Every structure is written in C-alpha cells, then in structure tokens.
C-alpha cells in the first residue's frame, strides 16, 4: 500500500522534502511501525517533541495505517 508523508516547519528542511510517498509491503501497519521505518531513513524524526497527524488528526502510535492515508510529521507549533 502507498501512503503520503508530509513534513512541516523545520522538519521539512531537516528531511529535505515537504512531501513524499511511501510504499509499505504487506497489509495494514501500525503508525509506530511506519514511524520507525522513517526514523531509519531520517534520524531527526526520532524526537519526542514531534507530533504526528494521520488524515489531519493527531494520532497515537497504536493507530492502524491504511492505504492512501496522509501522515504529517511536525515540530511544536508556534503560531499566533
């Protein structure tokens, strides 16, 4: 299955892209499995302050990821 990954703020610069697609072999995977896979490529993602949204809603590591999902990794927000 294929999922979409988005990076925001400083993470987009650290990782070097704003948007990427990731092919996962096999069936559904947990968010934590996907996160570990991405950390192996981009060690900067191994940071407890980074939040992850799945389909635009904050998610925890036990969420199941499905084909076509949109995952967003972002640092603490600083608007206002």
């Amino acid at each position: 299955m294929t999922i979409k990954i988005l990076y925001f703020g400083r993470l987009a610069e650290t990782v070097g892209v704003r948007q990427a697609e990731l092919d996962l072999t096999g069936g559904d995977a947990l968010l934590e499995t996907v996160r570990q896979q991405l950390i192996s490529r981009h060690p900067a993602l191994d940071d407890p302050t980074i939040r992850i949204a799945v389909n635009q809603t904050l998610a925890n590591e036990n969420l199941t990821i499905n084909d076509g999902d949109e995952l967003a990794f972002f640092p603490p927000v600083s608007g206002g």
Partner: protein
Amino acid sequence: MLSIQKEDFDVATEYAALVKNASNTGAIVTFVGLVRDTEQGLKHMLLEHYPGMTESVIQEIIDAAKQRWDIDDPSVIHRVGELQATDQIVFVGVSSTHRSDAYAACEYLMDQLKTRATLWKKEVTSTDEQWLDSKPSDIKRAARWIENPKSTTSS
C-alpha cells in the same frame, strides 16, 4: 468566522462585522497580534500552515469557546506567508452580552491557538534563519484553562 489567509485584514471591517452579526451584545473584545522586530533586524517572517488541519483545529477551539462562554460566533483570522515587522498576523474578535465572557473567550482563543493550531513561524534576519519554538510561557497560559475552566479576566 474563520479565515487563514495571505492578505492583510482591516480591524474596522472585522469590528463592523462583529457588530452586525451580534445578538443582544453589550461587549466586543478584539485582539490583534503583530510581527515583532528582532535585535538582529527582521528581514521577514515566514508563517507556514497545514491547510485543512489548521482550519479544523481552530474550529474545534472556537466550538469549545462557544460551549464554555455565552458568546456569539467569534472571528478568527490568521495570516500565512511572508510578513514584515509590525505586520498584523492574527485577529480574534468576540462579542457577548457581558464583557467578562468576551474577555475570557478572547484570551482562551489566543492561548489555545498559539499552542494547538498547526502554524509555524520562521524568523529571517540578514544573518540568520530560525524556526521558532513554542514558548513555555504560552504552554503555561494555555494549561490554566484546564485548571480553571470558568476562569475570567474580569474578577
């Protein structure tokens, strides 16, 4: 009313809209946030957002404020893109029958927006570029609404 936009906003126009849409209103509180200059001299500030999620998070904050206080539909405008020092970044306007609810809801909206809305600031000076972090003071301000859900600023 909620808008994430590149364009500037006019406070008088937004105030007039609040007056027009208000019901039995005795108080309107507005807040405008501006881009601060830095010691190094700000070249510009870049505001990035997550289209879709930013709007839905702010709408959740607006809905929570409407449940908590006796207020009309608030106005929230947040600008994105490239901004200069002293440019307006954010507008929050709240109308209510009484000032205490309007003050409290306006502060709540700003405190929650600063700590929850998916927006990121980058300061660009002539010598440096720096993404800004959430400030501990902002996180503390936002947390007090959990400890004191009925807190108002008028007491």
